[in-house]
């Protein structure tokens, strides 16, 4: 153990040989408060401090203000506390448009998230194989969509799925359909385009997480499984996936969060159309705040509903998936 300068000052007795050496800041007979365990614990909390402080000021305080707002009604800056206090929340229950956006958002959540995560997992696993050729090529190609800015990808998708766009041309060309599909003009197909857009854009993103995680798992476990005679699928399912659990839980939470808060695609791809049929909750929130007659109290209430939904779902996720071994 490295002798510390303070030893010379504090050691008053020669320790007996069988006693453990005294702690560096041992003063007289008393055990110092700041022993190794406590110091370690404080350091541990210290590690969290910068991040936590930033979040406190940048997120929590605005969130608290938003909560107070959600209890107020009025337009613009003429806001007063509502009577009853939960008036905005009550109003949400009878808001047809909000209910529609809620349905839309859940449709996206239930269909898109599982598909995307499974796909990302499979792709990452494939890319992790040392024998794969052109790895860098595949990786870059699959990740590129998320590097593209929102404006462009929505314009591109809108053009491709237009009445006389490429997709229709191709489908009629190969005889799959008789007349062009009005992709963005009907609710179902418009939602499909959004889901397709989400899959296109975010699969690569999640793949990156899984690739990083795959690098951190122990290859010997996979080797062992292989030697025991397991095939590719079994190895994947019984050996790889359980070790990836923490990362799967992470991406699941992030995806749930991202999808429930979906704004970009609803805004840029379909403008929430046709007639609010693809609009997400966050998009509606933005409309109520900035495009319609500003009703910030109501918008804040919507945001808290979103928060509660995300919190509940994430909580379930963590309980179910995130066991520490």
């Amino acid at each position, binding site marked *: 153990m*490295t002798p510390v300068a303070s030893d010379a000052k504090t050691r008053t007795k020669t320790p007996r040989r069988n006693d453990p050496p005294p702690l560096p800041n041992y003063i007289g007979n008393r055990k110092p408060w700041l022993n190794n365990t406590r110091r370690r*614990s404080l*350091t*541990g*909390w210290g*590690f*969290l401090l910068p991040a*936590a402080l930033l*979040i406190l000021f*940048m*997120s*929590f305080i*605005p*969130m608290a203000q*938003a909560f107070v707002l959600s209890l107020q009604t009025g337009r613009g800056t003429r806001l007063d506390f509502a009577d009853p206090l939960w008036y905005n929340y009550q109003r949400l229950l009878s808001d047809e448009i909000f209910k529609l956006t809620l349905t839309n958002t859940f449709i996206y959540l239930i269909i898109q998230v599982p598909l995307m995560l499974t796909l990302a997992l*499979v792709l990452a696993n*494939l890319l*992790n*194989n*040392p024998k794969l050729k052109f*790895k860098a*090529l595949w*990786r*870059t190609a*699959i*990740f*590129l*969509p998320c590097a*593209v*800015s*929102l*404006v*462009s*990808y929505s314009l*591109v998708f809108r053009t*491709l799925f*237009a009445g006389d766009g490429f997709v229709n*041309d191709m489908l009629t060309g190969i005889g799959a359909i008789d007349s062009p599909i009005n992709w963005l003009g009907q609710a179902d197909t418009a939602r499909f385009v959004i889901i397709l857009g989400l899959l*296109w854009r975010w699969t690569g*993103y999640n793949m990156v997480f899984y690739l*990083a995680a795959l*690098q951190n798992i122990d290859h010997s476990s996979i*080797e062992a499984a292989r030697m025991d005679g397991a095939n590719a699928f079994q*190895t994947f399912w019984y050996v790889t996936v359980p070790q990836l659990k*923490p*990362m799967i839980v*992470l991406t699941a939470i992030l995806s749930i969060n991202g999808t429930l*808060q979906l*704004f970009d695609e609803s805004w840029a791809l379909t403008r929430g159309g046709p007639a609010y049929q693809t609009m997400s909750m*966050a998009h509606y*929130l933005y409309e109520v705040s900035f495009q319609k007659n500003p009703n*910030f109290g109501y*918008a804040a209430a*919507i945001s*808290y509903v*979103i*928060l509660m939904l*995300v*919190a509940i779902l*994430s909580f379930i996720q963590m309980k179910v998936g995130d066991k520490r071994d």
Partner: protein
Amino acid sequence: MTKLRSLPGYALLAFWALFSLFPLYFMVVSATNTSKDVLASRMLPGTALLENISVLFSTQNVVGAMTNSFLIAVGTTVLALAVCSIAGYGFEVYHSRGKDIVMAILLLAMMIPFAATMIPLFQLFARVGMVNSLWAVVIPMISTPFLILLFRQASRSFPHDIIEAARIDGLREFSIFARIYVPTMRSTFAAAAVITFMMAWNNFLWPKVILVNNSILTMPMLTANISAGYVTDYGVLMLAVLLSSLPTMIVFFLLQRQFAQGITGAVK
């Protein structure tokens, strides 16, 4: 050793890669076409690239916007990696019930839509006179619960006995983090860097709001300017968007080997 069952694996990869690249191909091609052709979904490259370039650079401050976006993205990434990695490490390595509760509370912060906290946040910066500054753009983006969560989850697979060994060897806590954890978790840092850079680069709403007098422009703001006129030149727009997407692609390309490579023997 695992032999890649060639066909299904390659097929899926090829399909998804093509599917991913196709719209990008359209974007690149459109940047070389005239507005009219872009609207007609022309698939072949055209001859309007130089013209689009000259129109773009003469009507918009592209260099300025690229520089600003770059400063914001790099600044955010460096600071975010520093702040969130130690937090994630802290949550996992010094695990306690208390920390779990704190983590859950911090997670709540990312669950509220930004549009709702935007105005109180703006008010905060207005009160300290930091509106219209690049710092005001960067600071809210540094500490995200998501990055902290990423590092925490990644740390789950970091063997704790290494830490114990280091402690016995007399290393201080922060040294353990800096000298052992950071080099080992290189892949996580690389992934986090890519993700943060991308998010900071493409962030549209907050910079637009806080840089209220448009004296500083970011690339997303610039492309929004182009698409907002009465008459939009779609070829120029696609070019702007292409330029806007290049840095993220480059960062990814540079870092991808980092997060796809394994741990390189830092442990013995």
